[in-house]
């Protein structure tokens, strides 16, 4: 079947971090009559899920691959969604940012890209985000998830980072409505750290972050 070939060719291009090739595959498919909806739901998302599976089976994709995979997938999704017949239904909404005193942008960007391609709405608050801003933005945008990226140990553990977000959620009785997910290098060095900073979950990379967030959202709707 044609779609299978598209998935295989697209995945191979993404895997090889070849952006031009990936777009070529998608544009060829569109030219041959595949719809933008099919591209997103039957090519991009399944290919992302294949990657999740590969990674959970201990395959080490490197940073260049992660980055390109997320950027390509999110760009393709953006381009396709603009061509959708009816506006698509999203799974949920996430506010994301880098924690207080941390200016590393890349982890957040990769995660955002992956989430967007999985049809999750992402609102990017930028870097050096205070706990107050995380919570205020989540309320303002009616987001069920606060995602915090920290690339340094001291910003992950800081009293003014995730711990403060947890404190605010608790004080305002928001803990049932808003969940916290964290990620970044310090959490991969110490896989128990997310508990110490009192987050609900963590993920080791952008691709599995999509799955963890989907699970958190589904958990709240039960």
């Amino acid at each position, binding site marked *: 079947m044609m779609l299978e070939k598209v998935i295989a060719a697209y995945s191979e291009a993404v895997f090889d971090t070849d952006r031009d090739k990936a777009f070529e595959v998608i544009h060829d498919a569109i030219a041959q009559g595949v719809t933008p909806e099919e591209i997103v739901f039957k090519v991009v998302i399944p290919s992302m899920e294949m990657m999740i599976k590969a990674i959970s089976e201990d395959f080490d994709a*490197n940073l260049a691959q992660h980055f390109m995979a997320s950027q390509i997938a999110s760009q393709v999704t953006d381009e396709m969604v603009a061509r959708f017949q009816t506006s698509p239904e999203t799974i949920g909404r996430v506010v994301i940012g880098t924690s207080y005193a941390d*200016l590393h942008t890349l982890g957040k960007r990769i995660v955002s890209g992956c989430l967007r391609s999985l049809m999750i709405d992402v609102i990017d608050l930028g870097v050096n985000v205070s706990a107050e801003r995380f919570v205020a933005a989540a309320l303002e945008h009616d987001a069920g998830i606060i995602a915090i990226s920290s690339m340094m140990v001291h910003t992950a553990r800081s009293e003014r980072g995730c711990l403060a977000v947890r404190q605010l959620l608790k004080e305002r009785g928001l803990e049932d409505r808003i969940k916290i997910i964290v990620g970044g290098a310090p959490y991969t060095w110490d896989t128990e750290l997310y508990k110490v900073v009192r987050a609900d979950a963590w993920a080791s990379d952008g691709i599995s972050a999509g799955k963890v967030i989907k699970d958190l959202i589904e958990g709240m709707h039960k």
Partner: protein
Amino acid sequence: MPILSVALNHQHIADIPFTSSANVFKLLAMSEHTRVRSACQGKGTCGLCLVRIDQGRTGELTQYEHRRLSAGQIAQGIRLACQIRLFDHASVTLINPLAIDALDNLTVHSPLAANARYAAAVDLGSTQLRISLWDSVHRRRIAGYCGFNPQAYYGTDILNRLNAAATDKAAGTAMSELIQDTVESVLTEWADTNQLSITEILLVGNTAMLVLLANKHVEQLLQPAYWTQAIDCSLDFSTLGQTQIPISVVQPVAGFVGSDLLVGLLAVGLAQSEGSALFVDFGTNTEMALWHRNKLWITSVPGGPAFEGCGISCGVAAEQGAISHVNYDAATGEFRGELIGTVNDTSEIKGLCGSGLCDVMACLLASGQLKKNGRFVQADSELEIELVNLNYRVTVKKQDIDIFQRAKAATGAGISKLIGIAGATSADLTRLCIAGSFGRFLNIQQAQAIGLLPDCAPERVELCGNTALMGCEQLLSSSNRDEQLNELKRCVEIVNLSQVDGYEDVFVDNLYLQPMLLA
């Protein structure tokens, strides 16, 4: 009581008695000379605490060891110390000891009697501490010391040390005293054996090291606002301990521009260069400066410790027994290696140091086994290379390449942005000065092939060694220290890469193993 017997380089160095069920990492940590390196405090994630089990029964390999160790290492009996529990007698050999032999044999001269004036220059590095006894009249080095920074006990990473000092007053005081005590004991011994008196001590270092010594303003360095500001690192004591020798530090320029960089620039005379000149001092934090049209553009990039061999499964420090160079012969398809020092047999070969690793990347690209995006052409998770002349096989894991790519990308992107922001091009570069111990062994062409260094004619490249200590010595002999420093400081333009638009994209571009593209 069972005993753990410890060896290093074929020599027995300690016997550690223990009661039932003991963790090897913790046992080794009990005394200073048996400690092994660690960046994860024994959690199993950093892969640094390598030891070889020579005798004794140990449990199964843990999941962390399967992740971190290559098949070759496992076959040799190499394990992670923090993952082993002992119940009975055993012997181990340290592969990655914390206290390494000073490789940097500092060249020294015998003292000249007539009207000499002796002073001490100290380069306070996060990993190593270098001290020289300097005759400031005859401009000669009389004695040299190079040892491990004893603060490493509080963390190999400077942020961990800053954190420890910021949260625990006692730790802050202890870290400052560790440095003072080390300098004091070295100087006292020199003064005694050479029967001479030392008139002053001058220290240089990165800002974190200096605030830890001064034991103040530690919290400031943890806040982004201070990185481009001057931080007061003056000492609250004017003489060193019992010695009564006057002590002072060369003040850093800003949060992430230390005085080690500043005096390094003096040592190589960067601001006296004919045309534009680039200076790169490789380390966990790589500092770089570009002299272009009477301005000194400075930045620092935190590439991580990969260039020092840390966090790489086959990586070791640049010391005796490390492979410093690797070459690939396209005609025969053979790989060859060169060692630091000499070894009696292959079991003394420790692994790849930073420059060797850099060569391996370039060689694997050249041999067609690695793609420029960092993937092996044949999708294995590790690859074995035989260094035919050494009769030694070295295994490179996929994650080693990823870590190396990140360190390289941070540096490459820093250089490329600095050159761009200053409005220069690589053709303008009349000098490329490489400092640091990684730089000593670097193969420039290979480093250029993978984009660690910009393109530049080989005759323009200078391998400068430890410029911080040299610069500190020069200042000791200078009659107008402050003026010299201020003149340099006036030209400085600090570039904070976290505020530079597009650094992140250039970083990603530089992840690819290919010649550097200048923005």
